[in-house]
């Protein structure tokens, strides 16, 4: 394999380009009209425009992407995450066009894509699933009956779902009908499929997932778990490996179950089995992500294995280069996702122009980003602009290095969630590893963010800034001078 097309954008496209460079393969980028100057376009060996800014007309445009693959002579397509990465039709169309899809076979994507089907396959394979229905519910009546059976509280979930859409927690019977209606209609909106199923709700659960790698020759290994319990509205924010809850025995048990799950669907390539874990450490299959995860880097940091390169090698028909017993975990790694959003304003997205950026660096710090000075965070795409990952000999050092790295991180021009992340990782409960999916509202309250109190240095800074701005403007009165523009520049949002 000599040339690979990356059907994605942003930090993940950049990350895959780096893997290809390290393997001396050529990287072909595709881009929408909004992304002409983007990092992935500039770092790739070749780059082609595939349409207007909306994803539906560009990054989701299979015809355009396959056409570029053909024109450029690419032999394989890496879908990254999101967009077409879990689209079985796209995987099938790649195969038809004689291209290697760097991901699992279409059948495995399909088997895991429909959640109730996945639950049935897993239950049959001996993988523990959360008690509940194995088929979509016919109607609210059936939902009520099943809820009675497993016992409240229960969770309603979209069968086609993911990302927290079409999900409702139901505490008691009288809430059930309304919740069923809401979940179903949200599922229609989000996935075009209103099917909903039901699980027993696990309270204060942890979200722990197991990374696996499977080659085309039946070799499957697990790469250790990631703790992803720190979520805001079902969106992962902070992830780490290993989980502070998981010891060697639980890791082996969970890993072997994950391998079993992957085998049950004939899985090939990198994949992640997500588990819900209750307070006593019992774990239940939740779903499988049939692609590289956003948070794959923490696993790379502690195992020393490059997962993107492993994916490409597997797709090229290579055997896994290591066996289960060759793998070991060194130290601890934490990832924070930097979003262009404003925690002080209901976490509203903050697209805009990046006036200046300083990324953290130094010992134990890895950054995967797509930001650059003069770059734009576009309205059209996911607002995640960077991942900061830190490694330490132990979890506390990794956490302290994360605090240090976030403090060094600076973007002028757009707001980010940096301070929100700092509030999380510097909290005593985080440092002690007491995590569950309710962490953020529990720690930060309903607004999920604490605005800090007044500080004399802020007052001093404001006074000096005002003083210097006034002094700068003085000689400029009444003319087209540099004064106002200096002012304007100086007031770029911090």
């Amino acid at each position, binding site marked *: 394999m000599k040339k690979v097309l990356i059907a994605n954008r942003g930090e993940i496209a950049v990350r895959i380009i780096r893997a290809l460079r390290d393997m001396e393969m050529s990287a072909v980028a595709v881009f929408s009209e909004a992304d002409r100057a983007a990092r992935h376009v500039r770092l790739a060996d070749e780059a082609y425009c595939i349409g207007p800014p909306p994803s539906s007309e560009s990054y989701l445009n299979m015809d355009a992407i396959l056409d570029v693959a053909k024109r450029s002579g690419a032999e394989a397509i890496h879908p990254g995450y999101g967009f077409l990465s879990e689209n079985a039709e796209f995987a099938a169309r790649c195969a038809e066009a004689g291209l290697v899809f760097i991901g699992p076979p279409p059948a495995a994507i399909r088997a895991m894509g429909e959640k109730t089907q996945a639950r049935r396959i897993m239950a049959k394979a001996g993988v523990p699933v959360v008690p509940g229905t194995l088929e979509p519910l016919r109607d609210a009546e059936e939902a009520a009956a099943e809820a009675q059976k497993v016992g409240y509280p229960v969770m309603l979930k979209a069968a086609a779902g993911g990302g927290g859409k079409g999900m409702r927690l139901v505490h008691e019977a009288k809430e059930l009908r309304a919740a069923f209606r809401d979940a179903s209609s949200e599922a229609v909106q989000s996935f075009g499929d209103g099917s909903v199923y039901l699980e027993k709700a696990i309270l204060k659960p942890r979200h722990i997932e197991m990374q696996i790698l499977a080659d085309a020759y039946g070799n499957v290994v697990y790469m250790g778990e990631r703790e992803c319990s720190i979520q805001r509205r079902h969106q992962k924010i902070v992830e780490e490996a290993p989980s502070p809850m998981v010891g060697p025995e639980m890791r082996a048990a969970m890993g072997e179950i994950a391998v079993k799950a992957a085998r049950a669907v004939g899985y090939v390539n990198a994949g992640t089995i997500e588990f819900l874990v209750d307070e006593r450490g019992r774990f239940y299959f939740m779903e499988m992500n049939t692609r590289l995860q956003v948070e794959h880097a923490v696993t790379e940091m502690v195992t020393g294995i490059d997962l993107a390169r492993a994916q490409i090698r597997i797709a090229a028909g290579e055997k896994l280069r290591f066996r289960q017993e060759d793998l070991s975990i060194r130290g601890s790694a934490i990832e924070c996702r930097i979003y262009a959003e*404003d925690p*002080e*304003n209901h976490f*509203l*997205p*903050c*697209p*805009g122009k990046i*006036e*200046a950026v300083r990324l953290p660096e130094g010992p134990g710090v890895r950054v995967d980003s797509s930001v650059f000075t003069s770059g734009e965070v576009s*309205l*059209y*795409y996911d*607002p995640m602009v960077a991942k900061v990952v830190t490694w330490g000999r132990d979890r506390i050092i990794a956490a302290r290095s994360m605090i240090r790295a976030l*403090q060094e991180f*600076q973007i*002028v021009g757009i707001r980010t969630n940096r*301070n929100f992340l*700092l*509030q999380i990782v510097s909290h005593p409960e985080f440092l002690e590893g007491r995590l569950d999916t309710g962490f953020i509202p529990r720690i930060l309250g309903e607004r999920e963010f*604490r*605005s*800090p109190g*007044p*500080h*004399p*240095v*802020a*007052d*001093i*800074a*404001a*006074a*000096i*800034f*005002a*003083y*210097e*701005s*006034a002094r700068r403007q003085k000689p400029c009165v009444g003319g087209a001078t540099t004064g106002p523009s*200096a002012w304007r*520049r*100086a*007031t*770029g*949002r*911090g």
Partner: protein
Amino acid sequence: MRYVILRDGEQVPVEVQERDGGYLVRLGGVTHEVDSREVVPGLLSLLVNGESWEVTVYSPEPNFYHVHLWDGMRRVELLSPIDVVMRSQGGATAGRGLHVRSPMPGKVVRVLVAPGQRVTKGDGLVVVEAMKMQNELQAQDDGIVREVRAREGENVEGGVDLVLLDPVDG
């Protein structure tokens, strides 16, 4: 130069005085030795009695400063002596609550009011979309629409006036 910081209805005096290429800043009765350097526009390196602080400052509108320290952002309302006099003479009739501004860059998808229309606190005025999320801007107070600057379909920057209201019985 003597400034006043307004916080929770209180006035805190701040005095800035140049000395030896730096400043003496008198704040709430304490004098701080401060050295300031603007590293890039909007990014200040401050040495406050030897303590090193890296601070970004952004002024979204006159007299208001958003100051980012390590641990978060502070909004500081700071008035010069002239501002104080003007305010005390009632010069500030176009009060803050009556400018309805876009909280973020985005696209105006709907304008819900027209000039002359009377609105009550909480009424929707304009809907702005960013990254497929719609955000309705509401009146903070009762008022009458003086001017609508938002145009449906237009992209707007953050902090831009979208609707101006006149107070009812100002």
